[in-house]
């Protein structure tokens, strides 16, 4: 039962959703399943939150290294949850929870935005460091990669036009911005399409395996 019922659920749900594309009578059921999925997704958020609280409470209780920062996590979590679920500073229970002067919007603008943006902005520095240390034209393929990258880096800025704007119209493909556009519209498109077709086939095969019950890795081990 522990393993059979989930396999049956996957098969039934997957089959209904595939059939809903082709058979209108099944379409309503397919839409309902999609709505179920949306609602369960919210419970998945709650699962994530609950797991977060559990991990950090254990860390604080057992006084593991850096347990003080777990307090920061929990305080941030519960304050935001209170503000969000309670719709604090939002006029009217039906108003948007992200109304302009709401506490949740304030938290978003002044805490989530700087933290999220800066986390990813750090990657700019690591890209520069990787460019210096790791990108080597060791062989023909790597050289092609670097040349393409150079043309794109130049072509996606106004510098490319400033450097090659003098090239006459009948040779204008050699102007870096035009070359960059051609690279994106021709070889890049071709390569990405080849990858897309391969990945698409992989997704179709995997989905079929899941619906037919041939793949049960999502069940985990029997020790769960």
């Amino acid at each position, binding site marked *: 039962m522990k393993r059979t019922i989930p396999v049956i659920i996957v098969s039934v749900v997957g089959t209904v959703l595939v059939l809903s594309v082709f058979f209108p009578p099944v379409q309503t059921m397919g839409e309902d399943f999609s709505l179920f999925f949306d609602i369960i997704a919210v419970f998945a958020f709650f699962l994530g939150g609950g797991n977060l609280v559990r991990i950090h409470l254990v860390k604080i209780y057992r006084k593991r290294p850096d347990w003080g920062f*777990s307090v920061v996590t*929990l305080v941030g979590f519960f304050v935001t949850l209170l503000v969000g679920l309670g719709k604090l500073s939002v006029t009217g229970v039906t108003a948007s*929870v992200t109304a302009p002067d709401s506490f949740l919007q304030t938290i978003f603008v002044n805490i*989530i935005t700087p933290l999220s943006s800066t986390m990813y902005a750090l990657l700019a520095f690591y890209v520069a460091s990787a460019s210096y240390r790791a990108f080597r034209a060791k062989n023909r393929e790597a050289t092609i990669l670097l040349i393409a*990258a150079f043309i794109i880096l130049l072509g996606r800025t106004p510098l490319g036009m400033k450097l090659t704007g003098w090239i006459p119209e*009948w040779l204008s493909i050699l102007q870096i911005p035009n070359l960059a556009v051609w690279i994106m519209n021709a070889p890049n498109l*071709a390569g990405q399409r*080849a990858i897309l077709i391969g990945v698409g086939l992989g997704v179709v095969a995997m989905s079929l395996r899941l619906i037919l019950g041939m793949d049960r890795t999502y069940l985990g081990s029997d020790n769960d």
Partner: protein
Amino acid sequence: MRRITLIVTAVVVVLFIISWIIKTNTVPEDGTFRPFIQGFLVTFAAFLTLAIMSFLYRDNPFYKFAEHLYVGVSAAYAMSLGFWTTLVGNLFPRISQNLSDWFGVPFLHYEWHFVIPPILGIILLMRLSPKGGWISRWALAFIVGTTAGLNLPRFLRSDFIEQISSTFLPLLVQWQGVGPFFSNFSLAASGQFIAILTNITIFLGVLCGLIYFFFSKEHKGVFGTASRFGIWVLMVTFGASFGYTVMGRISLLVGRLTFLLKDWLGIIS
């Protein structure tokens, strides 16, 4: 080491307070606490930005503080939005008139089968329990089944059939004969030759790229040559991706520095 930490912390606190005072004075007075709060919020946002950036030097308590705060706040934000938009918006109007009235959303009509998702949701939450965790597989199975069922026809159509169809391009574009082709020959970006080259590159590039990924046959002879061309096309693809990735990451940095220089320090208008 501890003394250095204390000194650095003290300096940060002093700078924070100075910034708070300065930013409070830049917001027009309106007789409320608003300038005071605005000053604090801008300073706090700048502090968090610099705390994350301090990781570039090395890991430190300020970075850890910011990182841990981010984790907690983000999780709660998603939960709040999910609750109000989807549970209140989609679930309550279908299962309870009282709940709908309480939350101020229009009641739709009873759909008894909509008690299934909250049951599955609670089953999913059982994952937190050490002993009852096995039953959460039922909810996970529903999620897996939905994803598989939604993806199968759409990926087949859009990522396979449509992509193959889009690759069937005319290889001789605007063709009016060999004479006009050579008499009007140019390397103009919008010219005939480049249009032909583009379509040929796309057609051959897709074909050879797919040949490269076919590992069931040894890459020798004509097949090997096609595979080699495929690798070159893929290398151009990865080079283009690298260029765009650099552009994307730099623009995030520009955005953050603009905030620090404009909104916090006021160096630029």
